[in-house]
């Protein structure tokens, strides 16, 4: 088992896995996003307090939760990369970072567009909102650090350290509603035990969460494949697969012959 997992440290194997998973993720993501959003927008009952504005929940909550989830996934990948020296772990890390950043951004602006009708303001400096904004900056920091390095091997390690240091922000975001009293809603869905929300509203939300999660997976896989090829550009397996012509060895051998002949 362990050996089998370890074999995905090889880019070639990881690429194969990505190829296998990609279409599954694409199908599940499209289907559940369509179902969840149509259900949420048209068929879920409207909230007695918030009216129809509450329908924003079907994108706000999935994106908010998964923005944090993606960060944790990224940090775990970084840990794996640093400890076991998996090259592919760093590739996963940098593949998911922009996706997570986009999710964070979505949660920020949907929250903002929800806050205007509900709280009467676009933005307020409360703990949850601020810490979510910081999450965006943590993502951007990891990405900037990665791009700043020339050597991507080095870049992966450096950005990995940064990603792990930033993890402290995750519990702060989650518990911010309890530590500081704020305008923002407390935990309803992520509460342990029974969710305190009507089931007709709950189901489409769950489906949306699944949709967002698989969507993140899908895009991450595509990006990871890009990353793998980009990093292994000069390895034979890439050339064999995409290059078409590989006379590189021939050229080298040719040159060596000439030197030998002299």
């Amino acid at each position, binding site marked *: 088992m362990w050996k089998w997992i370890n074999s995905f440290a090889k880019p070639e194997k990881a690429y194969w896995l990505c190829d296998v998973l990609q279409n599954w993720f694409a199908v599940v993501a499209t289907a559940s996003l369509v179902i969840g959003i149509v259900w949420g927008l048209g068929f879920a009952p409207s909230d007695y307090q918030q009216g129809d504005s509450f329908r924003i929940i079907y994108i706000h909550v999935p994106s908010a939760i998964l923005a944090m989830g993606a960060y944790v996934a990224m940090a775990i990948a970084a840990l794996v990369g640093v400890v076991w020296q998996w090259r592919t772990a760093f590739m996963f890390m940098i593949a998911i970072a922009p996706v997570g950043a986009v999710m964070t951004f979505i949660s920020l602006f949907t929250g903002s567009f929800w806050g205007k009708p509900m709280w009467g303001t676009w933005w307020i400096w409360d703990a949850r909102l601020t810490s979510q904004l910081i999450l965006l900056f943590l993502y951007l920091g990891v990405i900037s650090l990665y791009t700043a390095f020339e*050597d*991507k*091997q080095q870049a992966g390690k450096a950005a990995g350290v940064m990603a792990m240091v930033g993890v402290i922000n995750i519990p702060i975001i989650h518990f911010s509603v309890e530590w500081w009293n704020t305008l923002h809603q407390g935990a309803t869905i992520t509460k342990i035990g029974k969710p305190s929300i009507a089931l007709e509203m709950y189901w489409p939300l769950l489906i949306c969460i699944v949709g967002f999660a698989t969507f993140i997976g899908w895009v991450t896989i595509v990006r990871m494949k890009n990353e793998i090829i*980009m*990093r*292994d*550009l*000069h390895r034979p397996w890439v050339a064999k697969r995409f290059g078409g012509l590989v006379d590189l060895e021939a050229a*080298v051998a040719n040159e060596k012959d000439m030197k030998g002949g002299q």
Partner: protein
Amino acid sequence: MSVLLAQQLVCEKSDRQLFSDINIELSSGQLLYVTGENGAGKTSLLRILVGLSAPATGKVHINGFDIHKDMPSASQGLLYFGHKQGISQLLSALENLQFWCQQHDVKATEEAINGVLAELGLTGLEDIAVKNLSAGQQRRVALAKLWLQQDASLWVLDEPFTALDVHLIAELEAKITLFLKSGGTVVMTSHQKLSIDYPISNLHLDYSW
């Protein structure tokens, strides 16, 4: 036992493979002369050998210790001299060398250091901040370490002759020969011809893309 043992070294920079399958085994009293064109990867190889950068695959043992796992023990008898000189620009030559001696457990009095500096033609410049010396003079301060460290068993020198004038090149070559004869091991690169009266094993790195 071999002083330096490198197995199956592969080096990758960005997405390019500089070299692969380098195997080196050096025992006491051997001189390895690494040659190759600009960009062939000489500096990269040397930095891997002393543990400053990690190879893509492969292992390096110095005096029996794995340099990438157990750096403090492996680097005990190692002296590396790279493109960067490892001396602080703001300190004087003397202070720099005193500090270096304390770091590396080398016992050397101030007179000893001054003596070495004099030997290298830096009399009178001992207490001037290094940044005010010329390129070649700075290089000499850094080279003084070779004169000070008595109990090293392996020298790794990356283009030690750059920026030196002819006299000093000759002196340095003599120093290297002496060290080899006393049982030391040397790995070095240079673009100049080496005129040392000692058997040289050559490692040529081919430029590959």
